[in-house]
C-alpha cells in the first residue's frame, strides 16, 4: 500500500504545510516578533506617556551604563535566576519527580497535583496568600511554626537582604518547581522497566537505581528544563512585584525585568519613561538570546533534534 506521501503532489503538500503552519506563524509574528521590534524601536526614543517618537538613538543605552542601579540590579537578577533555578526549578522538580515515582502511584500523583497548585493559582491570590503567611506577627503562619519550634519570629519583609531573598526565591520557586516536575516525571515514566528490574536484580538500592540508572537517562530533560527555565526566570517579575515590589529597601530584591517595568509604568506623578524601560527590556532580550546560544552549544541540544538512527 503506497504511503500517503506518494499520493499527493508537491505543491498540494506545500499548501497543506502552509495551512497548518501559518496560524502558529501568525501568532508568533504578532505576539512575539512585532512586540520585540516595537520595543527595540521605542528603546531608541525617549517616549513618555505622550507617545511621541522623540529619537535619541543610543541615548537610553548610554544612560543605562551610567545608571547607578544597574550593577546592583544585574547582580540581583543573576542571584535570583541561578538560585531559583538550582534550588527549585531543577532541584526541587527533580526531587519531587524522583520521590513520587518511587512511592505508591496514587499517593505520588496526589503529591504532584498539590505541587501544581501554586502554578495554577492566579498570581495575585498566590502572592496575597504568601503575604498573609509571612506577616511579622508571631501568630502568622511561618512565625507560628518557628515559635512552636522554639525559634524567634522573623520579620520577613523588613530590610534584611538574606531573608528577603529567601522569601522571593521561595515564592517563585514553589511555582517553578512544577514545570520541572512534570517534565521529569514524564521522562522517568518513559524509562523502560527492564533497566530498573535489572539493576534491582543486581542488588542495587533505591538510591543506586536513582543515581546510576535514572539520572543519567534524564540528562536531556534536565538540560532542557535548565535552559528553558533560565530564560523564563530572566523575564519573570510578577511575584516579586506583588510581594516586595523590589524592596523593602533601595532595590533590595529588584530584578532587571521589574526595573524595566518600574521605570516605564510605575511613576506616582504620572510620568513614565517608556523609552528607557524599552531599552532595559531590549537588553533582557539580548541576554536571553546569548544564554540560548550558550545553552545550545554547551548542552549540545542540537542532538535532541537529529533524526533517530532507527529506521521505521
Amino acid at each position: 500500500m503506497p504511503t500517503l506521501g506518494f499520493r499527493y503532489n508537491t505543491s498540494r503538500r506545500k499548501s497543506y504545510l502552509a495551512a497548518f503552519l501559518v496560524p502558529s506563524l501568525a501568532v508568533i509574528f504578532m505576539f512575539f516578533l512585532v512586540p520585540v521590534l516595537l520595543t527595540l524601536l521605542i528603546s531608541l526614543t525617549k517616549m513618555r506617556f505622550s507617545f511621541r517618537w522623540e529619537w535619541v538613538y543610543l541615548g537610553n543605552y548610554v544612560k543605562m551604563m551610567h545608571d547607578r542601579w544597574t550593577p546592583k540590579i544585574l547582580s540581583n537578577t543573576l542571584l535570583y535566576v541561578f538560585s531559583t533555578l538550582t534550588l527549585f526549578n531543577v532541584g526541587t522538580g527533580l526531587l519531587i519527580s524522583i520521590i513520587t515515582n518511587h512511592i505508591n502511584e496514587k499517593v505520588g500523583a496526589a503529591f504532584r497535583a498539590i505541587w501544581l497548585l501554586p502554578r495554577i493559582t492566579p498570581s495575585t491570590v498566590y502572592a496575597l496568600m504568601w503575604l498573609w503567611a509571612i506577616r511579622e506577627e508571631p501568630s502568622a503562619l511561618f512565625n507560628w511554626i518557628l515559635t512552636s519550634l522554639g525559634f524567634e519570629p522573623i520579620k520577613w519583609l523588613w530590610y534584611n537582604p538574606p531573608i528577603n531573598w529567601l522569601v522571593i526565591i521561595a515564592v517563585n520557586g514553589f511555582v517553578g518547581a512544577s514545570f520541572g516536575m512534570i517534565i521529569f516525571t514524564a521522562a522517568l515514566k518513559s524509562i523502560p522497566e527492564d533497566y530498573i528490574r535489572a539493576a534491582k536484580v543486581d542488588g542495587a538500592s533505591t538510591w543506586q537505581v536513582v543515581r546510576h540508572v535514572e539520572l543519567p537517562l534524564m540528562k536531556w530533560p534536565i538540560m532542557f528544563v535548565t535552559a528553558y527555565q533560565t530564560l523564563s526566570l530572566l523575564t519573570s517579575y510578577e511575584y516579586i512585584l506583588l510581594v516586595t515590589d523590589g524592596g523593602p529597601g533601595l532595590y533590595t530584591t529588584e530584578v532587571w525585568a521589574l526595573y524595566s517595568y518600574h521605570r516605564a509604568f510605575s511613576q506616582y506623578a504620572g510620568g513614565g519613561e517608556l523609552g528607557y524601560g524599552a531599552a532595559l527590556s531590549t537588553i533582557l532580550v539580548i541576554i536571553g538570546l546569548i544564554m540560548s546560544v550558550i545553552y545550545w552549544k554547551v548542552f549540545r541540544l542540537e542532538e535532541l533534534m537529529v533524526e533517530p538512527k532507527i529506521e521505521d
Partner: protein
Amino acid sequence: MRKILVVSLVALLALSIIISFPISAEEVKTITITVWTIGPDPPSEYRLENFYIAADMLNKYLEILGANIRVKIEGEFFVRPVEWEEYKKKFYLAYEAGKAPDIYLTGHEDVGFLAEEGMIIPLDEYIKKFWNTTYYDVISTLWEAVKHKGRIWAVPQDTEARPLYFRKDVLRELGWSEEEIEALPEKIERGEFTLYDLLKVAKEAVDKGLVKRGLVHRVKEGWDYLQFYLGFGGRLWDPEEGKMVFSQEAWKKTLKWFYDAVWGEYKGVIWPGQFSKDWDKDFHLPITKGEALFCSGGTWHKAEWIKKGLLTEEEFWNNIGFALHPAGEPGKKPVTLSHPLIYTITSQAKERGVDEIAFLLITLVTDPHINSYHAVASAHLAILNSQILDSRYVQDPFLRDVAYMLKYTTFIPNHPKWADYSRIVFETIRAVETGELGPEAAYEHLLESLKEALGDILKIEP
C-alpha cells in the same frame, strides 16, 4: 375564520409598528460631555456629582427657555483600590486612542506635562468671559497652581491642608492637662513645638506602652512627608528661575530626623515598615484605634474615617486634635502642604467642538454653594473666597477650624520633571526608614541622584 385571523394579525403588526414610532413634536438635541474624576477617597464623589447637579440646573434653564437642547453628563468617579497611577495611565492611553474625556480632573502637578504635550487647552480666554461673575472670587494663590509658562491651563477644583493629627486621649494619659492639649496647635503655630519636641513626646508615649507607634505617615509615595523638609526651611520651587530646589541644610536635617525617629535617639517612634502600601493596617487603623499618637495626614482623612465607620463625629472631636506640621527647629516656621486638584479640558474636547460647553459646566460647578457640597462632604477646603459664607461650609466646625492653615501652605512644583524629584525623595526616605542607608549616605545618595536626573533644572542652595 382563517382569513379573519390573518387580517387581524396583520392589523396588529401594523399597529405595533406605528405605535413604536415616538410621536414627538420636535427633536431634542442632546450634547454629551464626558467627565473623568477620581477620589481615590470615597467621600470625594462630589467631584463628579457636582457636574450632574450643574447639568441638571442647566437643563432646567434650557427647558424654561424653550430651547431644544439638553446637556448630558457621562461621568466616571474612580475610588480605591484604583490609585492615581492607574487613573493617570488610563487617561494617557485613552488620549492616545482618541477617547479622552472632555473634562479631566487631575492633580495640579500634571499641568506642566499635559500643557507641553498639548493634551489640554489653555483656558485664559474662557476664564475672561466669566471673570467678573465667577473667577474673580477664586482664592488668588490657587491660580499659581494652575499656571504654566504664564498661561492658565485649568480651573481649581479643591484644595486641602495636611494637618498633623494627634490623639488627645494619649496626651491625657501622658499627664497633659486639657489646657495644654488645647494649646498645642497654637504652640505649633508659634513655632514653639518643633519636630524634635514631637519625637520626644512620641517616644515617651511609646516607651510607656501607651501606643504602639509614635507617628504614622502615608504608606506610599506622595508629598505629605515633604512637609518635614519644608519644616526645616527647605524649598521645592524657585518661581523666578523656574527650577526645582534642593536646600542642602534642610535635607541633611530632614534625613537625620527620619533616621532618629526610626533607628536613632528616638527609635521606635516611626515604624521601619511604614511605607507598606497598606493604608488600613498602617495608617487608618493605628490612629483611629488610638495605637498611634501622631498622624501626618490630610483634612480629607477626617471625612474618610467617619464615612468608613472608624470614628464617629463625637469620637473625632473628643479624641483627635489637629495642627500644622511643626517647624523643624526653633526659628523655622510650621507648614502645611496643599495639593489642589484641577479640572482641565482636553484638546480632544476642542476637536469635538464641545470645549465651550465643557467650560460652561466647569463654571457652573465653580460656585460657592455647589463646591461646598464637595468641601463639606469630603473635608476639603474652599477654593472661593465667598465659600466661607456658604451656610453649609461655615457651619462645619472642622473646615472652620482648619481654615487658618492655608496661611502657611505651599504647593509642589508644576514642572513636568517633578515625577523624578518625587520618586528619588521617596526612595531615599524609604531607604532611611528601612535601615539601608544612614543619614549621611542617604544625603549623598539623594543629592547625586537628583543631580543626575534633573541636571540644570535643579537649583542647589545652602
